[in-house]
């Protein structure tokens, strides 16, 4: 019991604005408020064509509900503080960065190249150093998936420097 009190005491000594519960609640409320603002820009249906409620009413109600529930969660969290999460390791940020690399490469260069690059980055930074395995995971496996989707599912991948070579 003493430990619990100690833990709560530690959390109370933290600045209110740096508690994860505050940051998470603030992010949800800010995003919901921005979306709520957008609902006021939706077209309004003339009463004669309107069926039940305006198209903006339902999303507005949902966003207000989300904001109200988030505030409630925050006030509850003042009584029962959320545990402070551990710092995220570098491998997480590298994986996240590899998503950005994938988006840029797949948009401007090639879809297949994007997958290959992401695979090699993730695999390498997660600890794989064997070249054979890196080639397998970044080239051979995506190639199998690519050919499978292309031939069996009849999928046409977006054009790119490597994909164009395949399609001739």
């Amino acid at each position, binding site marked *: 019991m003493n430990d619990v009190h100690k833990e709560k005491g530690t959390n109370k000594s933290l600045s209110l604005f740096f508690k994860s519960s505050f940051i998470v609640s603030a992010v949800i409320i800010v995003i919901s408020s921005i979306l709520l603002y957008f609902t006021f820009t939706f077209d309004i249906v003339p009463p004669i064509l309107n069926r039940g409620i305006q198209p903006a009413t339902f999303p507005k109600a949902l966003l207000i509900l989300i904001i109200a529930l988030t505030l409630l969660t925050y006030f509850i969290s003042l009584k029962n503080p959320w545990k402070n999460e551990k710092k995220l390791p570098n491998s997480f940020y590298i994986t996240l960065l590899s*998503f950005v690399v994938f988006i840029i490469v797949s948009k401007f260069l090639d879809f297949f190249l994007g997958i290959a690059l992401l695979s090699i980055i993730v695999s390498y930074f997660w*600890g794989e150093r064997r070249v054979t395995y890196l080639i397998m995971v970044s080239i051979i496996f995506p190639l199998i998936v690519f050919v499978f989707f292309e031939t069996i599912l009849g999928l046409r991948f977006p054009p790119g420097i490597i994909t164009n070579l395949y399609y001739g």
Partner: protein
Amino acid sequence: MENLGLIFAPLFSYKLLIVLFFGTIFGLILGVLPGLGPTTGGALILPFTMTLDPLSAIVLLTAIYCAGTYGGAITAILINTPGTPAAAATCLDGYPLAQKGEAGRALGMATVSSVIGGIASVVVLIFFAPLLANLAYEFGQPEYFALAIFGLTMLASIGEGSPIKNLIAGAFGILISTVGKDFMTSIDRFTFGINELTEGIGFIPVVVGLFAISEMLTQSTLINQIFNRVALKAVKLPSIDDYKKTWKTIIRSSGIGSFIGVLPAEGGTVASLIGYAEAKRWSKKPEDFGKGSIEGIAGAEAANNAATGGAMVPTLALGIPGSATTAVILTGLIIHGVRPGPDLFREQPEFLYGIFGSMLIANILFFVLGFFGAKIFARITLVPNKLLWPMIFAVSVCGTYSLNQSIIDVWLMLLFGVIGFFMRRYGFSVVPVIIGLILGELVEGTLRQSLVIFDGNWLMFLQRPIALTFFVLSLIALSFPLIKRKKKNDKV
């Protein structure tokens, strides 16, 4: 009842038997791999099912569901890490028993109790789903609205984690369903001038993102995790003495699992925890629980597999998913153009009874494959994450792109992956988002149509007895966590 004979139809279709066989193997592999499981695996396989006819596609998904739920027990017992969340309670006694050198006995009991629970739940499904579907004939738009609200509140109160956070997640899921052209007036909502968004956000990018990509990000934080593996010689059938000790527990947990599964909630995970707790409560030796009790394994495993059939009841009869995996199966039904509900029972009984029969066969198949192949499946956990997850990424990206051949879908998948990761990190379950997304159109559509019927008078909802019952049940469901907390506080 005249359609019962159709249950055996899959036995005479070599195509369905092949689909079942591969679905069961795939389900076992997914169940064994921590972080994957039948929900994520089902989401990954969804785009591939487009090459199959609707029945084969759903049979494949249900086989993955049944086998994957059982597969989670293998890793729970051998490496103390549940392959699926539903197997978390199995770790409590499975791993200690395995550490005592009885891994084969623990897996044998898990296999037998899973099969009994699974088959019992399919029997519940066969008899209960048509009854529920018949009841649904009485439902109009207001009743469906009230039912959807009840489904969401049940999910919030019974599901894992904070009920308020579950409600926020559910509301977020419904909000995603409002993106695109309004289906009643064709007015754009949240499209931000992006043409691809006028058709709305598809199920696949959200499902794959929230389950597979967010899990990939979670795994990126766990790359230094080390598993302590217990050696397995062979799976052993439980002895007569084991059966004597556990038969009551298996029957009780099968009943609990089927009942919990029918409720629109988190299915197997909740069922196994309650099944385990009840097994302990009724046991003559509750002090053995947590130290390798065979009853503990039976209680948890019978319950989580019993939830599979139970969760299919509201999914097929009402179109309200009973668990996370059935939400994926429901997505599969929708993308194949099959609308669950009473009409499905009347118009396509061969389709439904084909699913029922396939679930029975899947339970028998995973018994055989699990019994003789558990040792091989356990070796799959040796595939390192640094190789596995890049491969899953490639499949996720191609699968998501394949449905509409849209790069925007792939970006949305990544976005929802990141959202899903942070949701999980801060205690929000991603399951209510999926269920909210699936039910979103139903909630909004039935609300607006009801208001048209009622001429804008909201109080008219209270004059419909069935709708009123669901609203009262929703209130009870919402107050349930408060009562639980008060009881806990009183105890302290």
